[in-house]
């Protein structure tokens, strides 16, 4: 038997790693992967709470989160390809057309 807080701490660590990667990474694909890592951390806490409360809706919500992540990955990677076509770079520091 593993206590629920252990799972929550693990999911918090994963989420924190995702946030850190989102902030410090410069490659746009790696930033995207950090977002996926955050979603995975949230999924873990969903499943942990579902097991804790014996409620299966948490697992159904994980399913929805996965679907949204898949849609997000498809559109986001298409955007990355479009950005690479026009700017010839994957570095987010050089994608600064909206900057003053």
């Amino acid at each position: 038997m593993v206590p629920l807080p252990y799972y929550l701490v693990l999911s918090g660590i994963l989420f924190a790693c995702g946030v850190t990667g989102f902030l410090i990474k410069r490659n746009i694909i790696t930033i995207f992967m950090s977002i996926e890592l955050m979603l995975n951390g949230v999924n873990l806490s969903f499943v942990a709470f579902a097991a804790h409360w014996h409620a299966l809706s948490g697992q159904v919500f994980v399913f929805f989160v996965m679907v949204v992540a898949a849609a997000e990955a498809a559109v986001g990677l298409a955007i990355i390809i479009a950005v690479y076509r026009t700017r010839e770079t994957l570095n987010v520091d050089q994608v600064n057309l909206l900057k003053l």
Partner: protein
Amino acid sequence: MLHLVLFSVFGAICVAGAVNLLVQRHPINSALSLIAVMASLAVEYLLLGAEFVAAVQVIIYAGAIMVLFVFVIMLLNAGEEERVGGSRVAIVFGIPGMLVGSVLTAWVLLRYSGTSGVELGAMPGPPKTIGWLLFHDFLLPFEVTSILILIAIMGAVVLASREEIPAPGERGEV
């Protein structure tokens, strides 16, 4: 006991993969360590008795989404990223703040909650029950999800397709 050992081993793999994702400079290495994170997360789901979610995690996340990522990395021929020095404010205030916050959160979580969990081998979430929930209680979100997927497919096709503009000089006039 076995439960805790399995949780610790695969949790350690999870954290190591997540840290490796941050440390590696080449995107393909980050992607592979993310796959390791997702695979060990699937084991954690199995420990929690969520067999359906574990299978879906491997199939959709580690299978479909990460293949898409690796494919795009290969397609764009992404190289190593260059490091830039972060701001000093972030280092001076951010890291101690993060440490204090995480220690506080972990302490509160570990202190104020009872123990629970499922027995090893008990699977409270069989696919049959989840399917029933999905098609009865969550029918409307499920249908909305299908519309979302449809829009995402169309958006991806529109965004990634090459524009059919014959002369490169005419692009600025529109």
